[in-house]
């Protein structure tokens, strides 16, 4: 009996009633509450760097006066890359923390899981850190949702087009991670090759992220006799793919997808392992010598030093997060002093941002109400003697 009462008291003690909403939830005279969810723990924890990078940049902006006199309060929660936890987090952020908008939620499945909920509640879900095409395409049904990254599907198309142009007789082998991320890349790649897909792609092999290594898969791909190797893999699997190809004595033209192209991953031993590989470029990788004296990279380093304790200045995820944060601040400014959720969405669908210091030169953020892919044009880069070297002009896939 006493235990029951104690239990009740304990639970009550732990509970907090939610604050009553202002006229625009999450916006006060002095602050804007922004929320997010990402894999702070678990296998994909590296990707949560975008949230830390954004957080650092927001703190920088706050220290310089904020947006229309309001400071950005950024709250982000851990979902361990489990979409059902994302749902719970978003529920908490909206119902308990009263956020004004959701920003840069990480992961395709995570964003899909919450999309119905956010749109039904009329809460902006902007600049999702996910590459699925649907976030830019299905705005009629989901007007409150918009992506940011070049969609993986489109990335695949860009590689396909480059191959058609430079290696018309290529025989292609593909290693892909067996989830939406890898499959999207592969689907875009096939679409980009068009009629030639069937003849050009000689072998595709998938792997589950629970695998220990991809030796067997790479051996299988080499045995197909391909001279071009698409690595649509993540983290250590990408490293292994490079190393095993090298070990097996296979020297194809390698294309590696953007998420696995961080310089820290590419710096392999022996140095020749990754030589000549191609990837796309949209954010400034701080380790690329072409950007060594770049003011944007310097700003990123400053933000990291001041506001992100323990942050690694070469971490591309941090810079990507800052790029997104910069765009959000741009949008918040454009949305005006009389900030509402609707005015934010209007700003977000009328973007014309050319001065983002964290994006590669020439890469812009452009949206219209009918074209909701903020970054649609990127550049290509080639790994040469230990660094990425951009080449060619702007490219894009078919949208």
């Amino acid at each position, binding site marked *: 009996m006493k*235990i029951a009462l104690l239990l*009740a008291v304990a639970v009550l003690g732990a509970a907090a009633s939610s604050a009553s909403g202002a006229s625009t939830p999450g916006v006060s005279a002095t602050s804007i509450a922004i929320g997010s969810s990402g894999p*702070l723990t678990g296998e994909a924890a590296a990707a949560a760097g975008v949230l830390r990078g954004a957080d650092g940049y927001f703190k920088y902006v706050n220290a310089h006066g904020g947006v229309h006199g309001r400071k950005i309060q950024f709250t982000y929660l851990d979902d361990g890359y*489990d*979409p*059902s936890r994302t749902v719970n987090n978003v*529920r908490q952020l909206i119902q308990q923390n009263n956020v004004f908008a959701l920003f840069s939620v990480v992961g395709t*499945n995570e964003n899909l*899981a919450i999309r119905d909920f956010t749109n039904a509640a009329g809460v902006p879900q902007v600049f999702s850190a996910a590459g699925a095409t649907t976030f830019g395409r299905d705005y009629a049904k989901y007007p409150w949702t918009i992506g940011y990254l070049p969609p993986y599907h489109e990335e695949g198309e860009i590689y396909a087009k480059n191959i058609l142009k430079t290696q018309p007789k290529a025989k292609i082998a593909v290693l892909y991670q067996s*989830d939406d991320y890898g499959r999207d890349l592969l689907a875009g790649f096939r679409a980009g090759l068009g009629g030639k897909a069937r003849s050009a792609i000689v072998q595709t092999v998938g792997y589950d992220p629970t695998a220990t290594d991809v030796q067997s898969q790479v051996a299988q791909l080499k045995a197909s006799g391909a001279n071009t190797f698409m690595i649509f893999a993540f983290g250590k699997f990408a490293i292994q793919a490079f190393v095993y190809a090298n070990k097996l004595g296979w020297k194809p033209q390698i294309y590696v997808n953007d998420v696995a192209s961080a310089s820290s991953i590419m710096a392999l031993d022996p140095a020749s392992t990754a030589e000549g590989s191609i990837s796309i470029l949209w954010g400034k990788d701080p380790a690329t010598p072409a950007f060594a004296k770049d003011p944007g990279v310097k700003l990123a380093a400053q933000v990291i030093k001041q506001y992100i304790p323990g942050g690694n200045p070469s971490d591309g995820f941090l810079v990507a997060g800052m790029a997104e944060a910069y765009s959000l601040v741009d949008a918040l400014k454009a949305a005006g002093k009389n900030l509402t959720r609707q005015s934010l969405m209007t700003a977000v669908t009328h973007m014309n941002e050319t001065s983002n210091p964290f994006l590669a030169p020439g890469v812009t953020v452009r949206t219209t109400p009918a074209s909701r892919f903020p970054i649609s044009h990127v550049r290509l880069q080639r790994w040469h003697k230990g660094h990425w070297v951009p080449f060619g002009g702007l490219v894009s896939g078919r949208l």
Partner: protein
Amino acid sequence: MRRLYAVGVTVLVLVLLPFVLSEFRTVQLATVGAYFIAVLGLDVLLESGQVSLGHGAFMAVGGYTTAILMANHGVQDVWTIPIAAGVAGGLGLLFGIPALRLSGSYLALATFAIAIVLPTLLKKFDHFTGGSTGITLFGRPTQTGHGTGYLGLTNNTWLYALTWLVGVLVFLLAWWLLASRFGRSLRAVRDSELAAAASGVNRSAYKVAAFGVSAAYAGAAGALYAINVAYVSPDTFPIQLSLFLLVGAVMGAFGSIWGALAGALLIQFLPDIVGVLPHVDTKQAGPATFFYGAVLVALILLLPFVLRVASSIADRSYSRTP
């Protein structure tokens, strides 16, 4: 009798809580209710001397049954709960048969392996399960929340009410089962298989039945969880959940409902508890995971002490120890 009184008071508290707490806390407690049901089921299994490190898998079966029935067959949410329990229970019975051949550690290993592999299987059979994208149940007004109309409840409160209604029901069922001849036979099997056999107890039948019942409970819990979050994916019921269910069940063993309740609360709120530790930056992967594990280790080390305290309270309060 005293126990009935205690349960009555708890029910009263449960009914009153939503009026005092915020909407969000209410729906959080609904999730706690789902965990509570799963933990109760696992307690039934422990009572028979068997162990499962993979009960999250049975929750997944229940959750996916609900999701598929609602998404593809238009079934109303409430009716999926007994079906989910049935499907999971059936699988539990099926698994219980070969499980008879496995001793403690090996059964733990086998159930552990199943729980780890299940997400992979769910991703593979994506025509059926929606693959890694999962199944969204949000926005089906004809199939969900009918209680809100009848009783004027909000959606969150309705979820809370539904979950705890089922929770109280299955608790009473478990209580009755464990106090009855079924429970006595289970405990006989647990304590001495030889003696149980000598007294004519069909050990195998009881052990398999225990698996079936506990799996059915987990299935119902999974169904309620799916209804609550309105979404399932292969990652919704990971191995960590199975392990924490076990922790909760161990706390709730020896017939202590409070242990089971505490276990369920722990599963829900441990991340928040870890978050209040001083000098810990829980935004970083390392510290958060470390303290999560450290709390688990601490719990196990404290457990004999806790159990001694709990059983001495139990001895004093009740005329008959279970």
